[in-house]
C-alpha cells in the first residue's frame, strides 16, 4: 500500500503537500478499494438471490464433492484419494490427478472459521469463494497497475474494471466453484510480484512470485500461461539488450523456486522438466546464465576478441541446445506436445484429431461479438492502453505488451481463454482512461484553475520542469481552447457517460447471461413471471432416493460430475475426460443397436442409463444434439463398428423423423430419447420441438432396458438395464413371447444339422 501510493504522491505533489494529506489520500484509497471489492462481490450474487445458494454447472460439482471429501477425511486421505465412484470400474486416482489448490483453500477457510467458532457449511464457503476472491483480484490488479502507471487513478480504475468486467464474472459468480475462481487472482498477483521483482531486482520479491506461482500451479492448469509468459518477457528483455542483474536475480529466483514448488503438486510431478510446454522456461533460464556469463567476460576481455567469442558461442550453444531439444523430443524423454496445445495453434486440429476436445463448447474459437459482450468499452480502450505502454517502454511496460499480444491471440482461439485476456484488458484500458482523466480532470480543482494547464504541459513537454508558473502563464494563450471549462466538462461528462454505460452493461450481462446455475433452468411464463424448470435435480434426487447406493449410472460424460455430486451414484464417465477409450465405450453403447449395447452395459455393470432429452420443452442442449460427438468419439476407437456416415441420410442430413437412417433409429440413444414420446400426442403428430420435425407414427421399442423415471418436462429420462433373461433367451425373444408371438419352430433346416455334444 505504501509503495503504491508513492508514485502518485510525486505526480500530484503540486496539489497536496505534507504528511497529513498523504495519509488522508491513503485512507481514501483504502476506502475506495474496499468499496470496489464490495461491488465486485455484490455483483456476483445475482444467482444466489435469484435462485439459491447452489453449486453451478458441471465442474464445480466435482470440486464441491472433492472439497467435502477433504473436509471429512483430512488432507492426507485427500492426497491419496482413490475415487471408486467415478469411471466405474476403473476408478480414478483423484488425489493425484487434480489441482488441489481450490479445495485446500476452501478447506483452510472452513477450518479457520471453525477455529474462531464460526461453523459455516462447507457448501456456503464453496459458493461464495469465487466472489470473495474476485475482491482480492480487484485489489491485485490495483497493485499491478500502480506498478505500471504513474497515474494516481489508473490503479483504481483497473481495480473497478477488473471487479465488474463480465469476462471475469463469467467464471466467478457465486456458485461457480471452479479453479478459475482463485486462479485469476493468483495470476494477477503473481504478475504483480514478478513486475515488482524485475523492477527491484530483489530475491525476496522473486521468491514471493515463485511462492504464488506455486499456489497458482496447485490451483489451475492455466499456470502454463505464466510459465511461458515470464520467460518470454525475460527473453524479449534480453533481445532488447536490457539484460541486467535485476532481471538475472529475479528470473533465476523465480524459476528455481517456482519449478520446485510446482513439482510438489502430484498432478504436475515431473512435467516441468519433461514436457515441451515447460521447456521455454528452462531454455530462458539457461540463456540467462549464458548472457550473465558473457556479460562477465565482456568486462574482462577487450571488445574485439569478445565479439568473436560471443558470435561463435551463441551459434554453438544455439545449435547444441536446439539439437538436444529435438533429440529428446523424438526419443520421448520430453513429452510431445499435447493435443490441447496443438489446438491452440490450429483451431481445426482438434476437430479432426481429438473429437473429445473439440466437443467441449468452451474450447471453440471465440466469436467476435463475444469480445464486446464480455469487455464492452474496455476492448476499444485496450489498444490505446497498449500504445501508452510503448510510449514509456520500461521493463514492466514490455511485459504488458507481451501479455496483451499473447492473451489476445489465445482469447481468439478458445472461448475459455477470454479469462486470461480480461486482466490485461482491464489494466491497459485503465491506463488509457486514467491518461485521459489526468489530462482533463484537473477541472475538478476549481480553486486553482491556473495550475491546471501546468501539469498538462508538464506531461506534454518534459518532466524536468515541475511547475514554473511564469513560463506557463506565457504559454497559456495558444492553449486556451483545450483547457476551457467547457471542453473539460465535455470530456469528463463523456467519460462519465461511458463509465456509467459500462457499469450498466456489466450489470446487465452479469444478471442475464452469467448468473444462471444451469442446473436449474429459468423460463418466463406468458404473464412475465418466472418459471423454474428443475428437472435435473428432480431426476438426480430420484436416483438418490430410489436406487441402491452402488447402482452404476451410465450417461454421457457431461452429466458425470452432477450425478456424482447430486445423486451420489457411481458413474462410468465424467467431465474429467482422462480416459478417451472409456468415453468411447459409452459412446458406442449409446450409438449402437440394443443387441450390441447390452453386453457392453452388462460388462460395465450398468444399472441405470440416463439420457437428457429436450424434445418436449425445446431444450436444445440435449443428448440427441450431442449425439454426433458420441458417434465421432466412438468411431475414433471402433471405426469398423460405429460409422458417422451411417447416421446421416443419403443427402447428408441429420434427421430424427421418418427419414432418419436405420442406424439412427436403431441406436439406443434415439430409442431411449423418443421411447413413448408419441403417446403424449394424438396419433402420428408427435413433434420434436428442438429439431422441429415430426416423429415417426410408430415410436421405438425397447427390449433390454425399461423406463424407470422420466422427469416432469421429460428433460431427464432414466432407464433401468434389465437382468439377463431367466430362461436364457435374448431380450427380444423374451419380449416377443410375452406379447404372445409364437416362436418359429426350428423345422427342417437346410444343410447339415448341428448336433449337440454333451
Amino acid at each position, binding site marked *: 500500500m505504501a509503495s503504491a501510493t508513492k508514485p502518485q504522491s510525486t505526480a500530484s505533489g503540486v496539489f497536496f503537500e505534507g504528511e497529513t494529506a498523504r495519509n488522508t489520500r491513503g485512507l481514501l484509497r483504502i476506502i475506495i478499494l474496499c468499496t470496489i471489492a464490495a461491488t465486485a462481490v455484490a455483483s456476483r450474487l445475482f444467482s444466489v438471490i435469484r435462485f439459491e445458494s447452489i453449486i453451478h454447472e458441471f465442474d464445480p460439482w466435482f470440486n464441491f464433492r472433492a472439497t467435502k471429501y477433504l473436509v471429512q477425511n483430512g488432507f492426507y486421505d485427500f492426497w491419496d484419494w482413490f475415487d471408486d465412484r467415478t469411471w466405474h*470400474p476403473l476408478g480414478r486416482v483423484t488425489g493425484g490427478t487434480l489441482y488441489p489448490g481450490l479445495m485446500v483453500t476452501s478447506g483452510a477457510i472452513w477450518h479457520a472459521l471453525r477455529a474462531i467458532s464460526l461453523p459455516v457449511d462447507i457448501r456456503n464457503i464453496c459458493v461464495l469463494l469465487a466472489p470473495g476472491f474476485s475482491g482480492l483480484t480487484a485489489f491485485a490488479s490495483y497493485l499491478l497497475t500502480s506498478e505500471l502507471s504513474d497515474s494516481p487513478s489508473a490503479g483504481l480504475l483497473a481495480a473497478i474494471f477488473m471487479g465488474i468486467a463480465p469476462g471475469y464474472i463469467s467464471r466467478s459468480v457465486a456458485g461457480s466453484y471452479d479453479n478459475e475462481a482463485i486462479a485469476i487472482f493468483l495470476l494477477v498477483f503473481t504478475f504483480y510480484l514478478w513486475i515488482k521483482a524485475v523492477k527491484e531486482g530483489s530475491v525476496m520479491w522473486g521468491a514471493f512470485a515463485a511462492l504464488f506461482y506455486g499456489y497458482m500451479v496447485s490451483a489451475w492448469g492455466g499456470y502454463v500461461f505464466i510459465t511461458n509468459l515470464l520467460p518470454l518477457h525475460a527473453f524479449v528483455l534480453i533481445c532488447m539488450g536490457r539484460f541486467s542483474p535485476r532481471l538475472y536475480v529475479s528470473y533465476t529466483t523465480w524459476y528455481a523456486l517456482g519449478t520446485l514448488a510446482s513439482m510438489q503438486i502430484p498432478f504436475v510431478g515431473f512435467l516441468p522438466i519433461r514436457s515441451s510446454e515447460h521447456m521455454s522456461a528452462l531454455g530462458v533460464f539457461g540463456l540467462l546464465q549464458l548472457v550473465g556469463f558473457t556479460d562477465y567476460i565482456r568486462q574482462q576481455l577487450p571488445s574485439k576478441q569478445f565479439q568473436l567469442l560471443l558470435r561463435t558461442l551463441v551459434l554453438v550453444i544455439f545449435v547444441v541446445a536446439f539439437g538436444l531439444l529435438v533429440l529428446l523430443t523424438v526419443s520421448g524423454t520430453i513429452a510431445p506436445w499435447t493435443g490441447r496445445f496443438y489446438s491452440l495453434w490450429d483451431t481445426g486440429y482438434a476437430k479432426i484429431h481429438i473429437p473429445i476436445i473439440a466437443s467441449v463448447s468452451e474450447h471453440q474459437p471465440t466469436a467476435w461479438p463475444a469480445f464486446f459482450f464480455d469487455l464492452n468499452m474496455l476492448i476499444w480502450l485496450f489498444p490505446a492502453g497498449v500504445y501508452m505502454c510503448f510510449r514509456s517502454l520500461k521493463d514492466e511496460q514490455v511485459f504488458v505488451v507481451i501479455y496483451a499480444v499473447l492473451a489476445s491471440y489465445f482469447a481468439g482461439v478458445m472461448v475459455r481463454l477470454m479469462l486470461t485476456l480480461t486482466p490485461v484488458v482491464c489494466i491497459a484500458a485503465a491506463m488509457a482512461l486514467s491518461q485521459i482523466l489526468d489530462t482533463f480532470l484537473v477541472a475538478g480543482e476549481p480553486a486553482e484553475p491556473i495550475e491546471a494547464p501546468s501539469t498538462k504541459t508538464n506531461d506534454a513537454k518534459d518532466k524536468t520542469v515541475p511547475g514554473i508558473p511564469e513560463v506557463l502563464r506565457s504559454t497559456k494563450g495558444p492553449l486556451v481552447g483545450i483547457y476551457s471549462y467547457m471542453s473539460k466538462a465535455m470530456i469528463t461528462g463523456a467519460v462519465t457517460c461511458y463509465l456509467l454505460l459500462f457499469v450498466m452493461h456489466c450489470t446487465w450481462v452479469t444478471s442475464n447471461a452469467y448468473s444462471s446455475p444451469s442446473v436449474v433452468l429459468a423460463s418466463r411464463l406468458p404473464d412475465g413471471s418466472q418459471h423454474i424448470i428443475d428437472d435435473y435435480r428432480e431426476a438426480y434426487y430420484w436416483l438418490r432416493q430410489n436406487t441402491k447406493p452402488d447402482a452404476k449410472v451410465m450417461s454421457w460424460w457431461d452429466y458425470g460430475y452432477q450425478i456424482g455430486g447430486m445423486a451420489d451414484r457411481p458413474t462410468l464417465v465424467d467431465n474429467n475426460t482422462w480416459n478417451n477409450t472409456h468415453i468411447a465405450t459409452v459412446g458406442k453403447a449409446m450409438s449402437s443397436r440394443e443387441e450390441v449395447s447390452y453386453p457392453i452395459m452388462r460388462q460395465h455393470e450398468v444399472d441405470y442409463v440416463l439420457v437428457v432429452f429436450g424434445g418436449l420443452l425445446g431444450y436444445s442442449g440435449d443428448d440427441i444434439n450431442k449425439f454426433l460427438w458420441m458417434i465421432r468419439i466412438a468411431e475414433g476407437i471402433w471405426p469398423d463398428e460405429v460409422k458417422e456416415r451411417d447416421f446421416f441420410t443419403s443427402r447428408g442430413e441429420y434427421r430424427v423423423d421418418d427419414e432418419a437412417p436405420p442406424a439412427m433409429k436403431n441406436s439406443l440413444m434415439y430409442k431411449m430419447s423418443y421411447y413413448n414420446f408419441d403417446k403424449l400426442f394424438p396419433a402420428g403428430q408427435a413433434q420434436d420441438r428442438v429439431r422441429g420435425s415430426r416423429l415417426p407414427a410408430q415410436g421405438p421399442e425397447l427390449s433390454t432396458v425399461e423406463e424407470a423415471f422420466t422427469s416432469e418436462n421429460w428433460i431427464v429420462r432414466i432407464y433401468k438395464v434389465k437382468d439377463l433373461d*431367466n430362461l436364457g433367451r435374448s431380450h427380444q425373444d423374451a419380449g416377443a*413371447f410375452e406379447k404372445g408371438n409364437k416362436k418359429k419352430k426350428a423345422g427342417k433346416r437346410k444343410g447339415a444339422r448341428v448336433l*449337440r455334444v454333451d
Partner: protein
Amino acid sequence: MRFTLLGLLLGFLGIVSALSATGSSLLVIIEEEADKSKYSQFWADLQGRGYEITYRSPKDTNLSLFLHGEPAYSHLLLLPPKSKGLGPNLTPNLLVDFINGGSNILLALSAEQAVPTAINSLLLELDINLPSDRTSLVVDHLAYDLTSSAEKHDVLLIPSAEPKKGVVDFFSVDGLVAFPRAVGQVLGNASPMLSSIVKAGASAYIYNPKEETEGVEDPFATGSQINIVSAFQARNSARFTVLGSSEALQDTWFDAKVRLPGTDYKAGKTSNKEFAQRLSEWAFKEIGVLRVEQVQHSLDEDTKDINPKIYRVKNDVRYSIEISEWDVDQWIPFNPPTGDAVQLEFSMLSPFHRLSLNSSPSTTNKDATAFSTTFRTPDQHGIFNFYVEYRRPFFTAIEDKQTVTVRHFAHDEFPRSYEISAAWPWISGIWVTIGGWLAFVAIWLYSKPTRDNKPASAKK
C-alpha cells in the same frame, strides 16, 4: 440373497419334515380322476417323502398357479392331458412366470396323445424341440421290450449311462428302465442350461406310426441326439424336467418283467420305480441344491479385518467361500465331482485371476466345505469383484460377487529414498550441493574485505 431366503424357507419346512429344499406343496395336473390310480405307487412314494399333493384337472376353472402374484405351489407335475390343450390357466406365459417365480415343473409327455401346442411353444422357449408331427414316438429295433412290444418296438429299455467325468451322477440305477411310447426331445446346442438325463440308444430314431413312409426317409432325429428325459435349470435355479414317457411312472411299469432282444439279457424286473424316485427327487430339488454359507476375504497377513472394502495393488489376499449341499433331508459339505473345481475370478471388466479353490478337511465343518485360496492383487487399480460362478449340470447355480476397491499406492507407501541403493548418488549429490553452497557462503562471508580496516564492523 436367494440362498438366505431359501434357508429361511427351510426353517419352516423343517417342521413339516419335507425333503425338498424349496417347499412341499405339489400340484399335479391330471385330467381324469380314473387315471390317478394308474400312478398310485408313485403318489404313495411322493406322499411318503412328505409332499402335500393337490390334484387338479386342467379344465378346473378355479385352478390358479399363483396366489397374490406369487407361485401358489412349489412344484408342478404336468401329466399329458387327454384334450388338445391345457386351458387358459396353464398357458405357456403362466408356466414361464411360474418358473420365473422359482418353482419347479416336471412335465411328462406321452405319444399316446398329441402333444398340446401350448406345451410345444413352451418347450421352444427353453430351446427343446419336439418332433413336428405331434404323434411321433421313439422306436429302437435293437433295444425294445420283447414282452410288451414285440411288434411295434416302441417300449424302449435303456440302461443308465456311464457317469461322465466332472458331472455329478444323480440318476444311475441298476438294470433297465422302460420308457413306453416316449416322445423324443432334441435339445438346442446353444443353451448351457439344458442337460440330458436319459438319451436314447444309438439305434433309436423318431418315427410317426401314422405316416408310415416319410418318417423313415428323413427322421426328425436319430440315435443319441434323441433325449427321453431332459432337464433345464433356469438362471434362478428353478428346475424344469421333461419326461418323454409318462407311462414310465405308472404302476404297470414299476415292476414289469421285460426282456431285451438278443441272448445276453434274460427277462428281468424294470428299475422304473427307483428311477422315478431319483427323477422326482432331483426335479423337486431334494438333491443337487447348493448354498453359499459364508464368504470371507482379507489380507493374508491380517486375517482379523474380515471383508474390508478396499485393498491396495499388490496386496496378498486370502479368499474363502463355504458351500453346502442339500441332500434329501440335511445340508452336507459340498464336494465338487471329481475332475471339477470351484473357481474364483478376480475381475475388473475381464478376469485378472482365475483360480481353482482348494478345500481342505481341516476347514470343513459338519455342513459346509470351505474353499479357499490366496493370491496377489494385480498391479492395476480399480473396482474389482471376487466372483464365484459355479454353474454345472444338475446343480443349482452359485453366483457370488463381492465388490472391492483396489487402490493405488499411497504417497507414504513407497520405499524411502535412502532404502533404494540406486538413489544414493542422487541423495549424496543433493547433500554435496547443499554442503558446498554452505561452505561457499561461509568462505565468502569470512573473506569479505574489510572496508575501513575496522575489525568491529567486519565482525558485525
